[in-house]
Protein backbone atom coordinates (compact mmCIF):
# COMPACT_ATOMS: atom_id res chain seq x y z
CA UNK A 1 0.00 0.00 0.00
CA UNK A 2 1.34 3.42 -1.04
CA UNK A 3 -0.34 6.57 0.31
CA UNK A 4 0.09 10.01 -1.21
CA UNK A 5 -1.28 13.40 -0.30
CA UNK A 6 -2.63 16.22 -2.48
CA UNK A 7 -4.72 19.39 -2.24
CA UNK A 8 -7.83 20.08 -4.31
CA UNK A 9 -7.55 23.33 -6.26
CA UNK A 10 -10.47 23.04 -8.67
CA UNK A 11 -13.13 25.54 -7.70
CA UNK A 12 -16.14 23.18 -7.75
CA UNK A 13 -14.43 20.69 -5.44
CA UNK A 14 -14.63 16.91 -5.87
CA UNK A 15 -17.92 16.49 -7.69
CA UNK A 16 -19.36 17.02 -11.18
CA UNK A 17 -16.71 16.75 -13.90
CA UNK A 18 -13.65 16.37 -11.64
CA UNK A 19 -15.30 13.49 -9.72
CA UNK A 20 -16.34 11.79 -12.95
CA UNK A 21 -12.84 11.93 -14.36
CA UNK A 22 -11.30 10.93 -11.03
CA UNK A 23 -13.49 7.83 -10.66
CA UNK A 24 -13.02 6.81 -14.29
CA UNK A 25 -9.22 6.84 -13.87
CA UNK A 26 -9.45 4.87 -10.60
CA UNK A 27 -11.78 2.35 -12.23
CA UNK A 28 -9.27 1.64 -15.00
CA UNK A 29 -6.40 1.03 -12.54
CA UNK A 30 -5.06 -2.54 -12.19
CA UNK A 31 -5.18 -2.23 -8.36
CA UNK A 32 -7.64 -0.77 -5.87
CA UNK A 33 -7.50 2.96 -5.22
CA UNK A 34 -9.06 4.51 -2.13
CA UNK A 35 -9.30 8.11 -1.06
CA UNK A 36 -10.30 10.20 1.95
CA UNK A 37 -9.66 13.27 4.02
CA UNK A 38 -6.86 12.98 6.61
CA UNK A 39 -8.08 11.15 9.73
CA UNK A 40 -11.27 9.92 8.06
CA UNK A 41 -11.94 6.46 6.60
CA UNK A 42 -10.92 5.97 2.96
CA UNK A 43 -13.59 5.22 0.34
CA UNK A 44 -13.37 3.48 -3.02
CA UNK A 45 -12.13 5.96 -5.59
CA UNK A 46 -13.92 4.23 -8.47
CA UNK A 47 -17.30 5.25 -7.06
CA UNK A 48 -18.58 8.74 -7.97
CA UNK A 49 -21.22 8.43 -5.22
CA UNK A 50 -18.56 7.67 -2.56
CA UNK A 51 -16.43 10.55 -3.84
CA UNK A 52 -19.45 12.84 -3.52
CA UNK A 53 -19.97 11.85 0.11
CA UNK A 54 -16.42 13.00 0.94
CA UNK A 55 -17.77 16.55 0.50
CA UNK A 56 -14.27 17.61 -0.48
CA UNK A 57 -14.04 21.29 -1.37
CA UNK A 58 -11.41 23.42 -3.04
CA UNK A 59 -8.47 23.74 -0.60
CA UNK A 60 -9.15 20.41 1.17
CA UNK A 61 -6.34 17.87 1.54
CA UNK A 62 -6.90 14.31 0.30
CA UNK A 63 -4.99 11.09 0.99
CA UNK A 64 -4.99 8.70 -1.94
CA UNK A 65 -4.04 5.07 -1.23
CA UNK A 66 -2.81 2.64 -3.91
CA UNK A 67 -3.06 -1.10 -3.17
CA UNK A 68 0.25 -1.91 -4.84
CA UNK A 69 3.97 -1.96 -4.05
CA UNK A 70 4.88 -0.69 -7.50
CA UNK A 71 6.06 2.83 -6.69
CA UNK A 72 6.36 3.83 -10.36
CA UNK A 73 2.83 2.68 -11.23
CA UNK A 74 1.41 4.43 -8.15
CA UNK A 75 3.22 7.65 -9.04
CA UNK A 76 1.98 7.58 -12.58
CA UNK A 77 -1.62 7.05 -11.48
CA UNK A 78 -1.30 9.67 -8.75
CA UNK A 79 -0.29 12.29 -11.31
CA UNK A 80 -3.25 11.46 -13.50
CA UNK A 81 -5.66 11.65 -10.55
CA UNK A 82 -4.22 14.91 -9.28
CA UNK A 83 -4.60 16.47 -12.72
CA UNK A 84 -8.40 16.05 -12.47
CA UNK A 85 -8.68 17.99 -9.22
CA UNK A 86 -6.10 20.70 -9.72
CA UNK A 87 -5.95 23.67 -12.02
Amino acid at each position, binding site marked *: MIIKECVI*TVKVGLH*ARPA*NEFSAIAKAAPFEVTVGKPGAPLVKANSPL*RLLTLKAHE*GDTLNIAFATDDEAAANQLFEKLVATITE
Partner: protein
Amino acid sequence: METVRTLEGIGVGTRAVLAEVLRWSARQPLAAMAKSSLGPEIEVNTLSKAIVNLENQYAAKIKAAGNQELREILEAQCAFATDPELADLAKDFCEQGWDAPSALQLAMGEFKSLLEGAGGEFGERVADLDEIVYRLIQWMSGESDETVLPASGSFIIVADDLTPMDTIAFTDVVVGVVTKGGGPTSHTAIVCRARGIPAVVACAGADGLVNGQMVVIDPDASQVIINGSLADSDGDWWSVRPNLGAALIPVMANVGSVADAAQVKSAKGVGLLRTELFFLNNKVAPTRAEQQALYAQVLAAGPDGEIIVRTLDAGSDKPIAFLGIGREENPALGVRGQRVAAIAPKFYEDQLHAIKAAADAVKATGKKIDVWVMAPMIATIDEAQVFAKEARAAGITRVGIMVEIPAITRVIPHLKGVVDFLSVGTNDLSQYLFAADRVNSAVAALLNPWQPALLSTLEEIAADAAMAGIKVGVCGEAASDPLLAVVMAGLGINSVSASPSSVAAVTDLLSRVDVSAAKSAAMAARSATTARDAKAAAKGALLK
Protein backbone atom coordinates in the same frame (compact mmCIF):
# COMPACT_ATOMS: atom_id res chain seq x y z
CA MET B 1 -63.82 40.11 -22.07
CA GLU B 2 -62.07 38.75 -19.03
CA THR B 3 -59.72 41.02 -17.16
CA VAL B 4 -56.04 40.87 -17.94
CA ARG B 5 -54.01 39.50 -15.01
CA THR B 6 -50.28 39.16 -14.62
CA LEU B 7 -48.08 36.77 -12.64
CA GLU B 8 -44.65 37.92 -11.54
CA GLY B 9 -41.44 35.91 -11.83
CA ILE B 10 -37.92 36.26 -13.22
CA GLY B 11 -37.67 36.56 -17.00
CA VAL B 12 -35.18 34.65 -19.14
CA GLY B 13 -34.71 36.02 -22.67
CA THR B 14 -36.25 39.11 -24.25
CA ARG B 15 -38.77 37.90 -26.83
CA ALA B 16 -42.43 37.75 -25.75
CA VAL B 17 -44.52 34.82 -26.91
CA LEU B 18 -48.22 33.90 -26.88
CA ALA B 19 -49.21 30.24 -26.77
CA GLU B 20 -51.29 27.54 -25.11
CA VAL B 21 -50.42 26.19 -21.67
CA LEU B 22 -49.31 22.55 -21.47
CA ARG B 23 -48.73 21.41 -17.90
CA TRP B 24 -45.74 19.13 -17.45
CA SER B 25 -47.00 16.33 -15.22
CA ALA B 26 -46.16 16.55 -11.58
CA ARG B 27 -44.27 13.56 -10.27
CA GLN B 28 -46.28 10.81 -8.65
CA PRO B 29 -45.20 9.92 -5.10
CA LEU B 30 -43.10 6.75 -4.97
CA ALA B 31 -44.86 3.54 -3.85
CA ALA B 32 -44.53 2.53 -0.21
CA MET B 33 -41.67 0.24 0.81
CA ALA B 34 -42.47 -3.43 0.28
CA LYS B 35 -40.92 -6.83 0.79
CA SER B 36 -40.32 -9.01 -2.27
CA SER B 37 -42.64 -11.83 -3.25
CA LEU B 38 -40.31 -12.97 -6.06
CA GLY B 39 -37.04 -13.60 -4.25
CA PRO B 40 -33.75 -11.66 -4.26
CA GLU B 41 -32.40 -13.07 -7.51
CA ILE B 42 -35.27 -11.70 -9.59
CA GLU B 43 -35.23 -8.37 -7.75
CA VAL B 44 -31.49 -7.90 -8.33
CA ASN B 45 -31.95 -8.79 -11.98
CA THR B 46 -34.80 -6.27 -12.38
CA LEU B 47 -32.70 -3.54 -10.85
CA SER B 48 -29.66 -4.19 -13.03
CA LYS B 49 -31.85 -4.16 -16.14
CA ALA B 50 -33.33 -0.83 -15.03
CA ILE B 51 -29.84 0.62 -14.60
CA VAL B 52 -28.74 -0.53 -18.06
CA ASN B 53 -31.88 1.01 -19.53
CA LEU B 54 -31.30 4.31 -17.77
CA GLU B 55 -27.66 4.34 -18.88
CA ASN B 56 -28.82 4.00 -22.48
CA GLN B 57 -31.34 6.82 -21.99
CA TYR B 58 -28.60 9.05 -20.64
CA ALA B 59 -26.22 8.13 -23.46
CA ALA B 60 -28.81 9.22 -26.04
CA LYS B 61 -29.54 12.46 -24.21
CA ILE B 62 -25.88 13.31 -23.65
CA LYS B 63 -25.37 12.90 -27.38
CA ALA B 64 -28.31 15.20 -28.10
CA ALA B 65 -27.25 17.86 -25.58
CA GLY B 66 -25.96 20.80 -27.58
CA ASN B 67 -24.80 22.72 -24.55
CA GLN B 68 -21.68 21.76 -22.63
CA GLU B 69 -23.07 22.73 -19.25
CA LEU B 70 -26.12 20.52 -19.75
CA ARG B 71 -23.98 17.66 -21.06
CA GLU B 72 -21.85 17.72 -17.90
CA ILE B 73 -24.92 17.63 -15.65
CA LEU B 74 -26.23 14.58 -17.53
CA GLU B 75 -22.82 12.87 -17.48
CA ALA B 76 -22.57 13.31 -13.72
CA GLN B 77 -26.08 11.91 -13.19
CA CYS B 78 -25.29 8.95 -15.44
CA ALA B 79 -22.11 8.22 -13.47
CA PHE B 80 -24.11 8.15 -10.23
CA ALA B 81 -26.78 5.87 -11.72
CA THR B 82 -24.20 3.34 -12.94
CA ASP B 83 -22.02 3.44 -9.82
CA PRO B 84 -21.27 -0.20 -8.84
CA GLU B 85 -21.39 0.82 -5.16
CA LEU B 86 -25.09 1.69 -5.55
CA ALA B 87 -25.89 -1.63 -7.21
CA ASP B 88 -23.91 -3.58 -4.58
CA LEU B 89 -25.64 -1.86 -1.69
CA ALA B 90 -29.08 -2.34 -3.28
CA LYS B 91 -28.24 -6.02 -3.78
CA ASP B 92 -27.64 -6.35 -0.03
CA PHE B 93 -31.09 -4.92 0.66
CA CYS B 94 -32.67 -7.27 -1.90
CA GLU B 95 -31.02 -10.15 -0.07
CA GLN B 96 -32.61 -8.91 3.14
CA GLY B 97 -35.98 -9.43 1.42
CA TRP B 98 -36.86 -6.00 0.02
CA ASP B 99 -38.24 -5.60 -3.48
CA ALA B 100 -36.07 -3.80 -6.05
CA PRO B 101 -37.65 -0.31 -5.78
CA SER B 102 -37.41 -0.41 -1.97
CA ALA B 103 -33.85 -1.74 -2.02
CA LEU B 104 -32.88 1.05 -4.41
CA GLN B 105 -34.41 3.72 -2.18
CA LEU B 106 -32.73 2.28 0.92
CA ALA B 107 -29.35 2.13 -0.86
CA MET B 108 -29.56 5.65 -2.23
CA GLY B 109 -30.84 6.78 1.16
CA GLU B 110 -27.47 5.82 2.64
CA PHE B 111 -25.63 8.10 0.24
CA LYS B 112 -28.17 10.85 0.77
CA SER B 113 -27.80 10.67 4.54
CA LEU B 114 -24.04 11.16 4.14
CA LEU B 115 -24.74 14.38 2.23
CA GLU B 116 -27.16 15.72 4.79
CA GLY B 117 -26.17 19.05 6.22
CA ALA B 118 -23.80 19.65 3.32
CA GLY B 119 -24.75 23.03 1.95
CA GLY B 120 -24.01 24.50 -1.44
CA GLU B 121 -23.16 22.36 -4.42
CA PHE B 122 -22.84 19.11 -2.46
CA GLY B 123 -26.27 19.53 -0.84
CA GLU B 124 -27.76 20.37 -4.24
CA ARG B 125 -26.59 17.02 -5.65
CA VAL B 126 -29.27 15.29 -3.52
CA ALA B 127 -31.73 16.37 -6.22
CA ASP B 128 -29.66 14.44 -8.79
CA LEU B 129 -29.80 11.31 -6.64
CA ASP B 130 -33.59 11.66 -6.25
CA GLU B 131 -33.92 12.04 -10.00
CA ILE B 132 -32.04 8.78 -10.58
CA VAL B 133 -34.17 6.86 -8.07
CA TYR B 134 -37.32 8.25 -9.64
CA ARG B 135 -36.30 7.33 -13.19
CA LEU B 136 -35.24 3.80 -12.21
CA ILE B 137 -38.42 3.09 -10.27
CA GLN B 138 -40.54 4.46 -13.07
CA TRP B 139 -38.94 2.03 -15.49
CA MET B 140 -39.33 -0.91 -13.07
CA SER B 141 -43.00 -0.18 -12.46
CA GLY B 142 -43.58 -0.08 -16.21
CA GLU B 143 -45.54 3.13 -15.80
CA SER B 144 -44.49 6.34 -17.40
CA ASP B 145 -46.04 9.62 -16.39
CA GLU B 146 -43.81 11.55 -18.73
CA THR B 147 -45.71 14.17 -20.62
CA VAL B 148 -45.81 13.39 -24.32
CA LEU B 149 -45.33 16.50 -26.40
CA PRO B 150 -47.75 16.89 -29.31
CA ALA B 151 -46.09 16.58 -32.73
CA SER B 152 -47.26 19.99 -33.88
CA GLY B 153 -48.50 23.27 -32.46
CA SER B 154 -46.97 25.77 -30.06
CA PHE B 155 -46.98 25.30 -26.32
CA ILE B 156 -45.83 26.98 -23.16
CA ILE B 157 -44.67 24.32 -20.73
CA VAL B 158 -45.76 24.99 -17.15
CA ALA B 159 -44.16 23.00 -14.31
CA ASP B 160 -43.17 23.20 -10.66
CA ASP B 161 -39.61 22.78 -11.83
CA LEU B 162 -37.85 20.93 -14.64
CA THR B 163 -34.86 18.62 -14.60
CA PRO B 164 -32.23 18.49 -17.35
CA MET B 165 -33.79 15.21 -18.52
CA ASP B 166 -37.10 17.04 -18.95
CA THR B 167 -35.76 20.04 -20.82
CA ILE B 168 -33.65 18.04 -23.21
CA ALA B 169 -36.81 16.26 -24.40
CA PHE B 170 -38.26 19.58 -25.60
CA THR B 171 -38.94 19.74 -29.33
CA ASP B 172 -39.72 22.76 -31.48
CA VAL B 173 -43.33 22.78 -30.26
CA VAL B 174 -42.08 24.21 -26.95
CA VAL B 175 -42.06 27.98 -27.45
CA GLY B 176 -42.01 29.06 -23.82
CA VAL B 177 -41.51 27.83 -20.26
CA VAL B 178 -42.96 28.87 -16.89
CA THR B 179 -41.72 27.28 -13.67
CA LYS B 180 -42.77 27.83 -10.10
CA GLY B 181 -39.26 27.07 -8.82
CA GLY B 182 -35.82 27.89 -10.13
CA GLY B 183 -33.90 31.14 -10.37
CA PRO B 184 -31.87 33.11 -12.90
CA THR B 185 -29.05 30.54 -12.78
CA SER B 186 -31.10 27.31 -12.41
CA HIS B 187 -30.86 24.43 -14.92
CA THR B 188 -34.11 25.52 -16.52
CA ALA B 189 -32.90 29.09 -17.05
CA ILE B 190 -29.55 27.92 -18.47
CA VAL B 191 -31.16 25.56 -20.95
CA CYS B 192 -33.84 28.05 -22.02
CA ARG B 193 -31.26 30.77 -22.54
CA ALA B 194 -29.04 28.43 -24.57
CA ARG B 195 -31.95 27.30 -26.75
CA GLY B 196 -33.52 30.74 -27.11
CA ILE B 197 -36.77 29.68 -25.42
CA PRO B 198 -38.35 32.60 -23.51
CA ALA B 199 -39.11 31.68 -19.91
CA VAL B 200 -40.37 33.04 -16.62
CA VAL B 201 -38.91 31.16 -13.64
CA ALA B 202 -39.56 31.55 -9.89
CA CYS B 203 -43.18 32.34 -10.79
CA ALA B 204 -45.17 31.73 -7.60
CA GLY B 205 -48.53 31.96 -9.38
CA ALA B 206 -47.71 29.20 -11.92
CA ASP B 207 -49.97 26.74 -10.03
CA GLY B 208 -53.06 28.58 -11.27
CA LEU B 209 -52.31 28.02 -14.97
CA VAL B 210 -54.37 25.28 -16.63
CA ASN B 211 -54.01 23.25 -19.83
CA GLY B 212 -55.34 24.95 -22.94
CA GLN B 213 -55.26 28.45 -21.47
CA MET B 214 -53.67 31.04 -23.78
CA VAL B 215 -51.01 33.06 -21.99
CA VAL B 216 -48.30 35.51 -22.94
CA ILE B 217 -44.81 35.06 -21.55
CA ASP B 218 -43.07 38.40 -21.38
CA PRO B 219 -39.56 37.71 -20.11
CA ASP B 220 -38.53 41.33 -20.60
CA ALA B 221 -41.09 42.39 -17.98
CA SER B 222 -40.62 39.15 -15.97
CA GLN B 223 -44.34 38.49 -16.30
CA VAL B 224 -46.84 35.90 -17.41
CA ILE B 225 -49.94 37.65 -18.80
CA ILE B 226 -53.29 35.84 -18.56
CA ASN B 227 -56.15 36.80 -20.91
CA GLY B 228 -53.79 39.22 -22.62
CA SER B 229 -52.33 39.57 -26.07
CA LEU B 230 -48.83 40.21 -27.35
CA ALA B 231 -49.77 43.90 -27.44
CA ASP B 232 -49.77 43.80 -23.63
CA SER B 233 -46.20 42.58 -23.60
CA ASP B 234 -43.13 44.72 -23.87
CA GLY B 235 -42.28 42.92 -27.11
CA ASP B 236 -43.11 45.33 -29.94
CA TRP B 237 -44.82 48.19 -28.18
CA TRP B 238 -42.49 50.63 -29.89
CA SER B 239 -43.67 49.85 -33.42
CA VAL B 240 -45.97 52.90 -33.13
CA ARG B 241 -42.88 55.11 -33.32
CA PRO B 242 -41.67 55.75 -36.88
CA ASN B 243 -38.32 54.35 -37.92
CA LEU B 244 -35.91 57.22 -38.56
CA GLY B 245 -33.55 55.13 -40.65
CA ALA B 246 -30.50 54.87 -38.43
CA ALA B 247 -29.75 54.12 -34.78
CA LEU B 248 -29.21 57.17 -32.58
CA ILE B 249 -25.91 55.74 -31.32
CA PRO B 250 -23.86 52.87 -32.80
CA VAL B 251 -25.03 49.38 -31.74
CA MET B 252 -22.13 46.99 -31.59
CA ALA B 253 -22.05 43.30 -30.56
CA ASN B 254 -20.51 41.35 -27.71
CA VAL B 255 -18.56 38.40 -29.06
CA GLY B 256 -16.90 35.47 -27.29
CA SER B 257 -16.33 32.94 -30.06
CA VAL B 258 -15.88 32.59 -33.80
CA ALA B 259 -19.53 31.49 -34.07
CA ASP B 260 -20.68 34.67 -32.28
CA ALA B 261 -18.52 36.76 -34.58
CA ALA B 262 -19.99 35.20 -37.72
CA GLN B 263 -23.53 35.71 -36.38
CA VAL B 264 -23.11 39.50 -36.02
CA LYS B 265 -21.39 40.28 -39.33
CA SER B 266 -23.85 43.12 -39.95
CA ALA B 267 -23.36 44.84 -36.56
CA LYS B 268 -21.56 48.18 -36.37
CA GLY B 269 -18.45 46.61 -34.95
CA VAL B 270 -17.71 44.64 -31.81
CA GLY B 271 -17.94 46.51 -28.51
CA LEU B 272 -16.59 43.63 -26.46
CA LEU B 273 -14.49 40.76 -27.75
CA ARG B 274 -14.02 38.50 -24.73
CA THR B 275 -10.78 36.55 -24.88
CA GLU B 276 -11.12 34.41 -21.74
CA LEU B 277 -13.61 31.99 -23.29
CA PHE B 278 -10.91 30.71 -25.63
CA PHE B 279 -8.74 29.65 -22.72
CA LEU B 280 -11.11 28.30 -20.04
CA ASN B 281 -10.17 24.72 -20.90
CA ASN B 282 -6.45 25.27 -21.45
CA LYS B 283 -4.18 23.53 -18.97
CA VAL B 284 -1.09 25.31 -20.27
CA ALA B 285 -0.64 28.88 -21.47
CA PRO B 286 -1.11 29.29 -25.22
CA THR B 287 1.91 30.61 -27.13
CA ARG B 288 1.92 34.01 -28.78
CA ALA B 289 1.51 32.35 -32.19
CA GLU B 290 -1.42 30.25 -30.99
CA GLN B 291 -3.14 33.33 -29.61
CA GLN B 292 -2.50 35.26 -32.78
CA ALA B 293 -4.08 32.52 -34.91
CA LEU B 294 -7.18 32.43 -32.67
CA TYR B 295 -7.70 36.19 -32.72
CA ALA B 296 -7.15 36.37 -36.47
CA GLN B 297 -9.86 33.75 -36.95
CA VAL B 298 -12.40 35.76 -34.89
CA LEU B 299 -11.48 39.07 -36.50
CA ALA B 300 -11.82 37.57 -39.99
CA ALA B 301 -15.23 36.05 -39.15
CA GLY B 302 -16.72 39.15 -37.55
CA PRO B 303 -18.08 42.50 -38.74
CA ASP B 304 -16.13 45.44 -40.16
CA GLY B 305 -15.61 48.58 -38.08
CA GLU B 306 -14.29 49.15 -34.58
CA ILE B 307 -13.41 45.92 -32.80
CA ILE B 308 -12.75 46.36 -29.09
CA VAL B 309 -10.72 43.45 -27.74
CA ARG B 310 -10.67 42.99 -23.99
CA THR B 311 -7.54 41.51 -22.49
CA LEU B 312 -7.99 38.28 -20.57
CA ASP B 313 -10.60 38.77 -17.82
CA ALA B 314 -9.71 35.77 -15.65
CA GLY B 315 -10.35 35.00 -12.01
CA SER B 316 -13.49 34.93 -9.85
CA ASP B 317 -16.20 33.05 -11.81
CA LYS B 318 -13.86 32.55 -14.80
CA PRO B 319 -10.93 30.41 -13.56
CA ILE B 320 -8.09 29.92 -16.03
CA ALA B 321 -5.92 26.93 -15.17
CA PHE B 322 -2.53 28.14 -16.40
CA LEU B 323 -2.41 31.53 -14.67
CA GLY B 324 -1.72 30.20 -11.18
CA ILE B 325 -4.32 32.22 -9.31
CA GLY B 326 -4.39 30.77 -5.80
CA ARG B 327 -7.39 29.99 -3.63
CA GLU B 328 -9.04 33.18 -2.36
CA GLU B 329 -11.69 33.75 0.29
CA ASN B 330 -13.47 36.35 -1.87
CA PRO B 331 -12.39 35.80 -5.48
CA ALA B 332 -14.67 38.57 -6.81
CA LEU B 333 -12.64 40.98 -4.66
CA GLY B 334 -9.31 39.32 -5.31
CA VAL B 335 -6.81 38.84 -8.09
CA ARG B 336 -8.95 39.01 -11.22
CA GLY B 337 -9.07 40.92 -14.47
CA GLN B 338 -6.05 43.13 -15.12
CA ARG B 339 -4.77 42.39 -11.60
CA VAL B 340 -3.73 38.94 -12.85
CA ALA B 341 -1.14 40.60 -15.12
CA ALA B 342 1.03 41.11 -12.04
CA ILE B 343 1.34 37.34 -11.49
CA ALA B 344 1.34 36.25 -15.14
CA PRO B 345 3.09 39.12 -16.98
CA LYS B 346 4.33 36.93 -19.82
CA PHE B 347 0.83 35.92 -20.89
CA TYR B 348 -0.41 39.51 -20.90
CA GLU B 349 2.54 40.79 -22.86
CA ASP B 350 2.09 37.98 -25.39
CA GLN B 351 -1.59 38.75 -25.62
CA LEU B 352 -1.10 42.41 -26.53
CA HIS B 353 1.43 41.54 -29.22
CA ALA B 354 -0.74 38.70 -30.54
CA ILE B 355 -3.76 41.04 -30.84
CA LYS B 356 -1.71 43.61 -32.73
CA ALA B 357 -0.22 41.01 -35.08
CA ALA B 358 -3.61 39.38 -35.72
CA ALA B 359 -5.20 42.79 -36.45
CA ASP B 360 -2.43 43.66 -38.91
CA ALA B 361 -2.67 40.29 -40.63
CA VAL B 362 -6.45 40.52 -41.05
CA LYS B 363 -6.29 44.14 -42.22
CA ALA B 364 -3.72 43.07 -44.82
CA THR B 365 -6.40 40.85 -46.38
CA GLY B 366 -8.44 43.96 -47.13
CA LYS B 367 -10.90 43.72 -44.22
CA LYS B 368 -11.87 47.14 -42.87
CA ILE B 369 -11.37 46.78 -39.16
CA ASP B 370 -9.95 49.07 -36.55
CA VAL B 371 -8.80 47.09 -33.52
CA TRP B 372 -8.92 48.76 -30.08
CA VAL B 373 -7.83 47.11 -26.84
CA MET B 374 -9.12 47.55 -23.30
CA ALA B 375 -8.34 46.13 -19.87
CA PRO B 376 -10.92 44.88 -17.34
CA MET B 377 -11.01 45.61 -13.59
CA ILE B 378 -9.10 48.88 -13.47
CA ALA B 379 -9.50 50.67 -10.12
CA THR B 380 -6.93 53.50 -10.22
CA ILE B 381 -5.37 56.02 -12.60
CA ASP B 382 -2.03 54.36 -11.91
CA GLU B 383 -3.28 50.97 -13.12
CA ALA B 384 -4.73 52.62 -16.23
CA GLN B 385 -1.36 54.28 -16.96
CA VAL B 386 0.57 51.03 -16.58
CA PHE B 387 -1.78 49.20 -18.92
CA ALA B 388 -1.88 52.01 -21.49
CA LYS B 389 1.91 52.16 -21.58
CA GLU B 390 2.22 48.41 -22.17
CA ALA B 391 -0.48 48.37 -24.83
CA ARG B 392 1.06 51.29 -26.71
CA ALA B 393 4.49 49.64 -26.47
CA ALA B 394 2.95 46.63 -28.24
CA GLY B 395 1.89 48.92 -31.07
CA ILE B 396 -1.78 49.34 -30.15
CA THR B 397 -2.99 52.84 -30.97
CA ARG B 398 -6.45 52.99 -29.36
CA VAL B 399 -6.29 51.99 -25.70
CA GLY B 400 -9.13 51.96 -23.18
CA ILE B 401 -10.30 50.56 -19.87
CA MET B 402 -13.46 48.99 -18.50
CA VAL B 403 -15.39 51.02 -15.98
CA GLU B 404 -16.73 48.41 -13.58
CA ILE B 405 -15.15 49.20 -10.21
CA PRO B 406 -16.91 52.08 -8.41
CA ALA B 407 -13.53 53.62 -7.47
CA ILE B 408 -12.61 54.44 -11.07
CA THR B 409 -15.93 56.26 -11.61
CA ARG B 410 -14.79 58.86 -9.05
CA VAL B 411 -11.62 59.86 -10.94
CA ILE B 412 -12.64 59.86 -14.62
CA PRO B 413 -11.47 63.46 -15.27
CA HIS B 414 -7.90 62.32 -14.51
CA LEU B 415 -8.06 59.73 -17.29
CA LYS B 416 -7.77 62.52 -19.85
CA GLY B 417 -4.65 61.91 -21.89
CA VAL B 418 -4.21 58.44 -20.33
CA VAL B 419 -6.78 56.40 -22.26
CA ASP B 420 -8.69 56.91 -25.51
CA PHE B 421 -12.01 55.36 -24.53
CA LEU B 422 -14.07 53.85 -21.69
CA SER B 423 -16.44 50.90 -21.69
CA VAL B 424 -18.87 50.41 -18.83
CA GLY B 425 -19.35 46.80 -17.70
CA THR B 426 -22.73 47.05 -16.00
CA ASN B 427 -22.72 43.47 -14.65
CA ASP B 428 -19.67 43.92 -12.46
CA LEU B 429 -20.39 47.59 -11.79
CA SER B 430 -23.74 46.52 -10.28
CA GLN B 431 -22.12 43.69 -8.34
CA TYR B 432 -19.64 46.08 -6.70
CA LEU B 433 -21.99 49.03 -6.38
CA PHE B 434 -24.71 47.01 -4.62
CA ALA B 435 -22.44 44.54 -2.79
CA ALA B 436 -24.47 41.77 -4.43
CA ASP B 437 -22.80 38.59 -5.68
CA ARG B 438 -23.59 38.01 -9.36
CA VAL B 439 -23.83 34.28 -8.89
CA ASN B 440 -26.13 34.35 -5.85
CA SER B 441 -29.77 34.27 -6.97
CA ALA B 442 -30.92 35.39 -3.51
CA VAL B 443 -29.66 38.92 -4.22
CA ALA B 444 -30.62 39.01 -7.91
CA ALA B 445 -33.16 41.84 -7.46
CA LEU B 446 -30.36 44.23 -6.48
CA LEU B 447 -28.67 43.54 -9.81
CA ASN B 448 -31.64 44.76 -11.86
CA PRO B 449 -29.97 47.21 -14.29
CA TRP B 450 -32.87 49.66 -13.90
CA GLN B 451 -31.88 50.34 -10.29
CA PRO B 452 -31.86 54.12 -9.81
CA ALA B 453 -28.37 54.07 -8.28
CA LEU B 454 -26.94 52.37 -11.38
CA LEU B 455 -28.67 54.82 -13.74
CA SER B 456 -27.35 57.74 -11.70
CA THR B 457 -23.84 56.27 -11.83
CA LEU B 458 -24.05 55.85 -15.62
CA GLU B 459 -25.16 59.47 -15.95
CA GLU B 460 -22.17 60.68 -13.93
CA ILE B 461 -19.73 58.51 -15.87
CA ALA B 462 -21.08 59.86 -19.18
CA ALA B 463 -20.91 63.48 -17.99
CA ASP B 464 -17.36 63.17 -16.60
CA ALA B 465 -16.14 61.35 -19.72
CA ALA B 466 -17.65 64.01 -21.99
CA MET B 467 -15.92 66.73 -19.99
CA ALA B 468 -12.60 64.87 -20.32
CA GLY B 469 -13.21 64.36 -24.04
CA ILE B 470 -13.19 60.54 -23.74
CA LYS B 471 -15.75 58.39 -25.61
CA VAL B 472 -17.73 56.02 -23.40
CA GLY B 473 -19.71 52.93 -24.38
CA VAL B 474 -21.65 50.34 -22.40
CA CYS B 475 -20.95 46.65 -23.03
CA GLY B 476 -22.72 45.02 -20.08
CA GLU B 477 -25.83 42.82 -20.38
CA ALA B 478 -27.92 45.90 -19.60
CA ALA B 479 -27.22 47.25 -23.11
CA SER B 480 -29.07 44.24 -24.54
CA ASP B 481 -32.34 45.72 -23.22
CA PRO B 482 -33.55 48.01 -26.07
CA LEU B 483 -35.35 50.45 -23.78
CA LEU B 484 -32.40 50.69 -21.42
CA ALA B 485 -30.10 51.28 -24.41
CA VAL B 486 -32.27 54.30 -25.32
CA VAL B 487 -32.04 55.58 -21.75
CA MET B 488 -28.24 55.16 -21.90
CA ALA B 489 -28.14 57.22 -25.11
CA GLY B 490 -30.21 59.85 -23.31
CA LEU B 491 -27.79 59.84 -20.38
CA GLY B 492 -24.93 60.65 -22.76
CA ILE B 493 -23.45 57.22 -23.48
CA ASN B 494 -21.84 57.24 -26.96
CA SER B 495 -22.35 53.61 -28.03
CA VAL B 496 -23.76 50.32 -26.79
CA SER B 497 -22.68 46.73 -27.32
CA ALA B 498 -25.35 44.04 -27.00
CA SER B 499 -25.43 40.24 -26.99
CA PRO B 500 -25.61 38.82 -30.55
CA SER B 501 -29.29 37.84 -30.21
CA SER B 502 -30.26 41.35 -29.06
CA VAL B 503 -28.43 43.51 -31.61
CA ALA B 504 -31.40 43.64 -34.01
CA ALA B 505 -33.96 44.66 -31.36
CA VAL B 506 -31.66 47.26 -29.78
CA THR B 507 -30.88 48.74 -33.21
CA ASP B 508 -34.58 48.83 -34.07
CA LEU B 509 -35.67 50.83 -31.02
CA LEU B 510 -32.64 53.14 -31.22
CA SER B 511 -33.68 53.84 -34.83
CA ARG B 512 -37.05 55.09 -33.59
CA VAL B 513 -35.81 57.80 -31.23
CA ASP B 514 -34.07 61.14 -31.67
CA VAL B 515 -31.90 62.91 -29.12
CA SER B 516 -34.80 64.66 -27.43
CA ALA B 517 -36.89 61.45 -27.13
CA ALA B 518 -33.91 59.61 -25.63
CA LYS B 519 -33.29 62.48 -23.22
CA SER B 520 -36.89 62.55 -22.07
CA ALA B 521 -36.85 58.75 -21.55
CA ALA B 522 -33.63 59.11 -19.54
CA MET B 523 -35.04 61.97 -17.49
CA ALA B 524 -38.23 60.03 -16.75
CA ALA B 525 -36.21 56.97 -15.68
CA ARG B 526 -33.89 59.08 -13.51
CA SER B 527 -36.80 60.61 -11.60
CA ALA B 528 -38.05 57.18 -10.44
CA THR B 529 -37.13 55.70 -7.08
CA THR B 530 -37.40 51.98 -7.92
CA ALA B 531 -36.14 49.82 -10.79
CA ARG B 532 -39.70 48.91 -11.79
CA ASP B 533 -40.86 52.53 -11.86
CA ALA B 534 -37.77 53.61 -13.77
CA LYS B 535 -38.51 51.17 -16.57
CA ALA B 536 -42.24 52.05 -16.65
CA ALA B 537 -41.43 55.77 -16.71
CA ALA B 538 -38.98 55.40 -19.60
CA LYS B 539 -41.52 53.43 -21.60
CA GLY B 540 -44.23 55.97 -20.78
CA ALA B 541 -42.02 58.79 -22.03
CA LEU B 542 -41.54 57.07 -25.41
CA LEU B 543 -45.26 56.38 -25.79
CA LYS B 544 -46.28 59.98 -25.11
